[in-house]
């Protein structure tokens, strides 16, 4: 099954990178779930956390405030001013 390559970066470092089956984020238009094969998208993250379901079955939660989300060719980048992994 196709997987997503996810990168979470904040202004001063790369916060998390890995493979995931699903990414759930809240954009200005509402909550969005991204699976492999999603159409190219660029959206503004409206705050709250981004949930990343890794291929290993864990959930990684990232606080990504005031940033954007870009999806293309099964590659998801979550870019935020400040981002951190919440356990």
């Amino acid at each position, binding site marked *: 099954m196709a997987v997503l390559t996810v990168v979470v970066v904040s202004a001063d470092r*790369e916060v998390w990178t890995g493979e995931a089956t699903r990414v759930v984020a809240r954009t200005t238009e509402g909550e969005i779930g991204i699976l492999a094969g999603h159409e190219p998208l660029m959206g503004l993250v409206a705050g709250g956390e981004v949930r990343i379901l890794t291929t290993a079955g864990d959930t990684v939660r990232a606080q990504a405030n005031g940033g*954007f989300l870009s999806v293309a060719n099964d590659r998801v980048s979550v870019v935020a001013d400040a981002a951190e992994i919440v356990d």
Partner: protein
Amino acid sequence: MGAQQRVYKAKINSTSSLRKIFKAMELIAASRIQKAVARAQAASPYAREITRAVSVVATQSNVDHTLTTEPDTIDRAAVVVMGPDRGFAGAYAANVIREAEELITLLKGEGKEVDLYTVGRKAETFYTFRDREIVRSWTGFSEAPTSAYAREIGEALLESFETDFNDGGVDEIYLVSTVYRSAVDRQPEYRRLIPLEVVEEDEAAPAARSAAAHDEVFPLYEFEPSAEKVLDALLPRYIDARIQSALLSAAAAEQAARQQAMKTATDNADDLIKTYTRLANTARQAEITQEISEIVGGVDALAASGPSD
């Protein structure tokens, strides 16, 4: 001990204690270069993602954004000079200021007014000493700039850019900073920040630049909520990211310059110590020679007068 010798001994002592300070500063700077370079590299994924995103929006939509459109007339330009907070870095501060002065002369030659913004105490004092007006200055973080400072600078510049010319606003913004290429190669450069041309540059990581340079064809994106809104949110961040990467690169360059300057100072101290030691030896030898000749002269005088007794 003769007066001459004492003078040289004192000079040797003070030079060797200075040498210790220079050596320590050299080692500190050397270790900080690595940290500064690491920070610049850690920030480069962000700059890369932002640049990529801005390129996507810029190529795929025909959005005219104030930040990207060239104004009809440019009457006032802002120049941001990024210098160091501390000295002891050789010609580092002087070089970046000279570059800024060249740019200012150029801009004034084009009939533009120039608003000065400075980062770092050395750049600030250069202009305040010469009674040149500084619109705003930031100090205290030239060695370890964080993204919060970059944002602060970015916000101040954007605000001034969005202000009308008649209310004291500027029409274009230039950054003057030192670009770190390697531990021995750095170059003061000026670049125009706004109105911006999207450039895929990544000074901190040449490897990443070549990877990004492979012109990827962007797929057709869906924008949420709209291309305009996305661009609105992206461009200020892109500007912050560029300021941040300039600050980080300058911080690494500053440490490299300091390390080199302190290395030279240590070497010079070594030379001085050597020269003074030689002079002290000569003085000691001269003194001994003089004493011997005095004794010999005395003995001779006694011997000459001896037999007459």
